[in-house]
């Protein structure tokens, strides 16, 4: 490359670096123009996401079921005899059943607490490249969804509405490292903050260090002013490990969310909070052990023949 060419390349590189830094500065200063640009892009992409979601639903179910292949050999043999269209129909039906089950769970949860909700299908998963945990749902401001609303799964908290577009919305999942929620422990009523860390477990930090917390304690959301971003009384998770290290200022614990973030297909956005605090009405029932039937056999000895 000639000397002139090299200096031109350097100049171009410097211009592009300065432009990038300028964009970062504009964003950090909250310039609206960039938000509008992102919104425009999402409006362009969301119809494609919707189409891809509908088209790929059976395939997605196929991938998730693939891990069970070894356990259901006889069922597979039976399915192999059926024709291709029937297979596709079954896959679609299975996908619909999962969505129906999730929807039923959500409606039960919202109905018990008196939340007004808008249901929406998950149309896209967020990219991991930015180390963020997000999903996109197929309803937006046209359905009454606004920023900073609570999002529920069938088991409890799923996240909050981070960005809203006319026909879609970006949901920040509770597992996102930037997610924070105020919680209370059901039994002791202690309050604290829960922070996501990129996986299904999260870190709980209590404000008061005096009371003990125990493994298995259930956490519920505390609620925010005007129910945004959080409505009160939503099941969040349960404590799995308590950190009892000496010298810590605030007691901390590891919490496992009730929601399985890898299996979200239907979500509900709380567009209207409850008239009164539901309290502990939504505390999940602990699984009851199924009693094992005991069989008692009475044997009457036959009299031995006497001579």
């Amino acid at each position, binding site marked *: *490359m000639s000397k002139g*060419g090299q200096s*031109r*390349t350097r100049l*171009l*590189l410097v211009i*592009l*670096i300065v*432009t*990038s*830094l*300028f*964009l*970062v*500065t*504009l*964003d*950090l200063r909250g310039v609206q123009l*960039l938000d509008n*640009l*992102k919104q425009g*892009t*999402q409006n362009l*992409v969301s119809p*494609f*996401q919707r*189409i*891809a*979601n509908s088209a*790929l639903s059976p395939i*997605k179910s196929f*991938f998730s079921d693939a891990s069970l292949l070894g356990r259901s050999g006889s069922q597979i043999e039976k399915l192999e005899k059926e024709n291709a269209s029937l297979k596709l129909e079954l896959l679609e039906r299975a996908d619909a059943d999962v969505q129906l089950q999730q929807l039923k769970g959500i409606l039960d949860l919202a109905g018990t607490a008196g939340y007004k909700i808008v249901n929406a299908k998950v149309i*896209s*998963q*967020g*990219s*991991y*490249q*930015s*180390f*963020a945990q*997000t999903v*996109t749902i197929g309803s937006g401001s046209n359905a009454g969804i606004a920023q900073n609303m609570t999002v529920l799964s069938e088991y409890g908290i799923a996240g909050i509405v981070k*960005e809203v577009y006319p026909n879609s919305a*970006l949901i920040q999942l509770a597992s*996102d*490292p*930037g997610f924070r929620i105020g919680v209370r422990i059901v039994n002791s009523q202690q309050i604290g903050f829960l922070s*996501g*860390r*990129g*996986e299904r477990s999260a870190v709980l930090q209590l404000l008061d260090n005096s009371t003990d917390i125990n493994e298995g304690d259930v956490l519920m959301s505390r609620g925010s002013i005007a129910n945004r971003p959080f409505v009160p009384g939503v099941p969040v998770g349960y404590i799995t490990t308590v950190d009892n290290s000496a010298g810590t200022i605030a007691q901390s614990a590891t919490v496992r969310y009730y929601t399985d973030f*890898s299996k979200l297909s239907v979500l509900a956005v709380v567009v209207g909070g409850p008239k009164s605090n539901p309290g502990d009405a939504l505390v999940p029932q602990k699984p009851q052990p199924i009693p094992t039937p005991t069989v008692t056999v009475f044997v009457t000895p036959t009299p031995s023949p006497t001579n």
Partner: protein
Amino acid sequence: MSIRLIGISSLVFLCIFVVQESLISQFRLPGGGFSILIIFALSWAIMSEREVAAVIGFSGGLLMDLSQSSSGPFGQWTLIMLLASYGISYLGYGDDNFFGGAIGVVFSIVLANLLVEVLFLLSGPLLGVSIGSFGQIFTILIGTSVWTLFITPIVLPLFAKLHKSIYQAGTLA
């Protein structure tokens, strides 16, 4: 770089972006999956002159910033992709290039992809981005590298053919 080349390249980038956002984002792949946009930008950068590679990196990064699932401030991906693309082109361009062969190119893209992720991680806290637990970061870094290693050899011939058809036609025109 003529206006025609920029136009065609932008269209190709837009298509790849739509594929990433609508198709690939449908699957929650184990280990964090892969970004076809990063693979594409790095592949094209490695085949291009430094000047063109810088523009490719800038454009690819800009699209990644436009993605709604991008967590950092607008411009962070643009800066990182610009530097990575320029760097990979600097090492890869010319007869005495650093890579020497298709396998070398694949491994260079995997390494550059890893570098891009690490740069994002390092610059994230400075710009107020939360990045999660160590275990999760480690999983994503390893996972995306493995996925990139798996996907790149499949898509590289297609990307190379596309690059050749656009840029050779552009040079002759």
